[in-house]
């Protein structure tokens, strides 16, 4: 598998890795992307065109503006796919994503592109619909801001850019691990000053 263009440091096996979207055989194609992920979708269609494959008549493309404001929906709308949806946030698109997945037949090809949050949440939703976690293609583009779960209060904070960060639910200072949960699509945040309360290292912007 070709690896995504984003550079990731080598890490523990639980940390997700991403590839490059390639056109696949299948009865229908569901593409879900946010922000800069639009670039991966455009590249996918360019690649399909070179291979003489027309994905457009059987493609449902769901695109949302990224948390950082990136919106390339104009370019995507010009692709001419059978169904195109553009929404302001992933949350706004979720009911559409769930319906597209549960109404599908086996043979549906799933392509996810953009931020790790978008890829992770869509993957988790596909798993709930019964698709194997490795039965879909993913390509990372854009921000590396993380979706993190506080392992203490279980609250999830979106768009975490610093390590440590302060849990938006319980207020603990959390160290952001590469330890990842596919089920809830979140990295794990662990209290950093449990043994020496108040001894919190400076926040460093690591996930940009």
């Amino acid at each position, binding site marked *: 598998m070709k690896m995504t263009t984003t550079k990731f440091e080598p890490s523990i096996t639980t940390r997700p890795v991403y590839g490059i979207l390639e056109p696949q055989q299948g009865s229908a194609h569901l593409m879900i992307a946010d922000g800069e992920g639009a670039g991966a979708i455009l590249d996918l269609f360019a690649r399909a065109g070179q291979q003489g494959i027309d994905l457009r008549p059987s493609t449902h493309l769901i695109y949302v503006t990224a948390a950082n404001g990136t919106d390339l929906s104009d370019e995507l709308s010009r692709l001419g796919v059978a169904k195109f949806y553009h929404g302001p946030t992933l949350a706004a698109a979720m009911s559409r994503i769930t319906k597209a997945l549960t109404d599908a037949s086996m043979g549906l090809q799933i392509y996810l592109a953009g931020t790790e949050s978008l890829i992770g949440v869509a993957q988790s939703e596909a798993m709930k619909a019964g698709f194997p976690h490795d*039965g879909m293609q993913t390509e990372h583009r854009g921000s590396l801001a993380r979706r993190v779960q506080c392992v203490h209060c279980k609250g999830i904070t979106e768009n975490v850019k610093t390590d440590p960060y302060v849990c938006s639910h319980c207020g603990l200072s959390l160290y952001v691990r590469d330890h990842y949960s596919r089920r809830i699509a979140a990295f794990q945040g662990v209290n950093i000053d449990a043994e020496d309360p108040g001894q919190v290292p400076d926040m460093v912007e690591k996930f940009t």
Partner: protein
Amino acid sequence: MSAGATRFPAIVAEVTEINNLIKTFRFVREDGAEVPPFSGGSHIVVEMDDDGTRRLNPYSLMSDPADTGGYSISVRREDGGRGGSRFMHTRVKPGMTMTISYPVNLFPIDGRAKKHLLLAGGIGITPFMAHMAQLSERNQIFELHYGAASRAVGQFGDRLRKHYGDRIHLYYDDEGTMMDLPSLLRGQPAGTHLYVCGPKGMINAVMKIAREAGWPRGALHSEEFLAPPVGLPFEVELANSGKTVQVGAAQSLLEAIEAAGVNAPYLCRGGACGQCECEVAAVDGEIEHNDHWLTPEEKASNSKIMPCVSRFKGQRLVLNL
């Protein structure tokens, strides 16, 4: 460490002739206690003493996993085989004590599936009988498509039809009814997992059609136990135990190694589980890889062999055993 799963003596409680090719055997414990529990898709290894030749053959459990009073298996007689199925058909009688292994499951149901599509060919029906008992107990959605040569040899079909109704779809070669695999695989709802057990040709065809229809690999499951093929006799050197072993024409490499008193690891004895994987120290000749375990690259490199089903043709083979 002893090789294989734990074994225990069992009494043959019943032998039932299903038709002239298939017999069903029921094993219970000598002490009348419950047998170790199993899940659908499990198999046991049955040990046979065939006039001095020790045979250990894997058979899928077909009984209901909720039934802990014993195990049932079905054996199809293969007259062209090495003799294990013939032994089961002609020599095994009710009341006999045999050695069997604890159950091992290499073909389990994936509990994350929304629907289970079961495809059986011939005697490949047996693991699905246990699967369906378990799925039905748990109110899971399933559908069985079962193909056999004729109604006469596919007698389990009628029994299953009575029990599970229209979830059972039957196809008989001699009546010209055939599974329409492309349309069957195109019409399955999201979250369906496919399971296939039967002859090699059927498994390969199903896998090919499923991949072409865009099914993800993780939703495809198969099991085929290979009988160790007969072949030319050959010699093998075991580097670690310092022995040279002759492998007979109707003997598998694993059986020959065991007969020489070397305790080699194994589990399924049918090329499926990977437990007996063995490093090749030196080879001058051609390894006949017959397993489903090694990758095509590993097979081509001749650096590993699965002694349960694979053979050798050539000058010299040395194993790290």
